[in-house]
């Protein structure tokens, strides 16, 4: 099994290169790269000055020499493959280049947003599993009761309504009208002056609405998965065996059915890890949170390719590791799962 996971980790390398080379090439092919953007910016600036002073350079205010410099800086003067490997070489020493928009190092831009995204990501994960597992269990035990039906209606409504609509509704009702929560932002303007408890409270009150918006959609899937999985296992014969041994049903649920019913959920766990960093740009936009979703979207629109590539590096690595994590989780809860090395079971 260990050798299986070592092989899986080694496979990350070619997959990672495949993903990044694809996107890297795409950034070259899509019209409107950073150079063009700078040229048009320069032209706009040039138009303003042109009114007062004498200037003509065939529409562009950048000299050919300057243009060549820029191209060389971004590696546009070389074939794609060459500049890709130059980029990759820098990535290996954690140099992601500079943002074409802010000219800050990409690494700084990303680490600036990292705490915000990780905060929301981890809480979404905790809330999803922390709520869905017990809720799904309770629904399974109380199958077809009023409680089961009402919660089903609520979570399916949450699933059916797009998360940005939920976000907008929450914002209008609870922030704008009732003024129970702030209108947005990650923390309040006076955050730095607050005491430790005050800071926690401030963080919390800002996080409530976005977190609801984030999780509303994902509740349905995990809860219903948990419920059905547990119901299947409650009807399983080994639970009857346990009860036939003299165990009471409640203990049989926790002692026997529970772990078995986690297997399908464990399969999805790794993928949820990578969700930590993706975020949703719409929710971030609505709540004015500076997270990864917004950063990724804006850098795409602005053709800030170094940032786009930087985010890609991080999220693809996380996704690949997440997949392996899923496998590890499944192997942990289900002894029947044996990976590789020919020891197939059953």
């Amino acid at each position, binding site marked *: 099994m260990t050798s299986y996971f070592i092989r899986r980790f080694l496979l990350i390398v070619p997959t990672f290169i495949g993903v990044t080379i694809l996107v890297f090439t795409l950034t070259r092919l899509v019209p409107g790269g950073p150079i063009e953007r700078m040229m048009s910016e320069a032209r706009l600036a040039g138009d303003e000055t042109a009114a007062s002073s004498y200037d003509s350079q065939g529409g562009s205010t950048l000299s050919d020499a300057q243009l060549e410099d820029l191209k060389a800086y971004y590696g546009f003067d070389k074939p794609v493959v060459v500049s890709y490997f130059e980029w990759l070489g820098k990535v290996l020493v954690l140099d992601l280049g500079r943002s074409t928009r802010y000219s800050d190092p990409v690494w700084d831009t990303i680490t600036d947003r990292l705490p915000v995204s990780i905060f929301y990501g981890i809480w979404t994960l905790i809330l999803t599993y922390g709520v869905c597992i017990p809720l799904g269990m309770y629904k399974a035990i109380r199958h077809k009761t009023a409680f089961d039906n009402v919660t089903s209606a609520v979570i399916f409504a949450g699933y059916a309504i797009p998360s940005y609509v939920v976000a907008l509704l929450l914002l209008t009702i609870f922030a704008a009208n009732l003024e129970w929560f702030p209108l947005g932002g990650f923390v309040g303007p006076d955050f730095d002056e607050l005491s430790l408890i005050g800071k926690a409270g401030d963080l919390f009150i800002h996080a409530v609405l976005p977190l609801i918006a984030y999780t509303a959609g994902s509740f349905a899937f995990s809860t219903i998965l948990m419920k059905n999985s547990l119901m299947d296992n409650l009807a399983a014969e080994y639970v*009857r065996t346990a009860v036939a*041994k003299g165990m*009471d049903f409640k203990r049989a649920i926790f002692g026997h059915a529970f772990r078995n019913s986690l297997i399908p959920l464990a399969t999805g766990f790794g993928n949820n890890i990578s969700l930590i960093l993706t975020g949703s740009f719409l929710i971030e936009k609505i709540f004015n949170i500076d997270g990864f979703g917004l950063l990724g979207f804006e850098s795409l629109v602005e053709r800030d390719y170094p940032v786009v590539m930087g985010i890609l590096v991080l999220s693809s690595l996380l996704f690949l590791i997440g997949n392996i994590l899923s496998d590890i989780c499944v192997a942990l809860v289900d002894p029947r799962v044996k990976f590789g090395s020919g020891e197939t079971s059953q």
Partner: protein
Amino acid sequence: MSILEIDELSVAFDTEGEIVTVVDRVSFDLEAGETLGVVGESGCGKSVTALSIMGLLPKPAGRIQGGDIRFKGESLPSLAPERMRDIRGNRIAMIFQEPMTALNPVQRIGRQLAETYLLHQPDLDADLIHRRCLGLLDQVGIPAPEQRLTEYPHQLSGGMRQRVMIAMALASKPDILIADEPTTALDVTIQAQILELLRDLQRETGMAIIFITHDLGVIAELCSRAVVMYAGRMAEQAPIRPLFAGPLHPYTRGLLASIPRLEDEPKTVLTTIPGVVPGIDELPSGCRFANRCPHVKDLCNREAPELVVGEPGHRVACHRWREIDA
């Protein structure tokens, strides 16, 4: 003295608002230390009867509609749940048809075996439990027990799993073992081994066994008495010899006639009972075997026959058994 008395037991299922009686006034006794066979075709209510004894009817659909089950004189259906848990798995144990699914796939054999002790003898120390588990596996003929304890069910064959199930049932030295078709899912040689094992264990421990099967051959091999069920009712009950030598009920006769015999000419067409069992929702008010019975008369369609004593220890539910027997 009878250790278990089933007295006019009726069991009903509530299926989508409709209540169907699937076991209808079944009565039999079990003597301490004997092996009683319960035989009948699929769906006749064998498992439901067994589950009723264990108090394991699927809830909330199934419930005991009438009658009583007495274990050592104590009425089981009216017992408090905690008291019933003391008896279940401790005084009365049960093994099931499907050894492949009856064990928890994510727990080691050792842990599942030890559980019976933890439930019924919580003050035993871990070391003693471990030694007892080893002893149990040894007793049911599992080689390398030390290693088996650390294995998971999927690492064992079907026959081995059924042995583990039997070991689990034996853990607390029960007075009664209910075996619900324990060999149906196994291949023939393994079947024979398991039957052999059950017979040996019974001799060693002196427990009573209720052996459920649809195979009359197995009954002949293992049991001292048998109950024949048909469509939720008892057709006949007798000690093995009279049952096989002189069956009284036309259904039992049909069953016996349908067993192929070595003395038969090769390629003799097997005798079968014509017709099919009436569906649970279209049961006739008269005798339930009437539509397949070669001896049917008006009375049979009008009135359900009561279980009467034909010969000593031999009971039968047929209006015409005397005439047929003659």
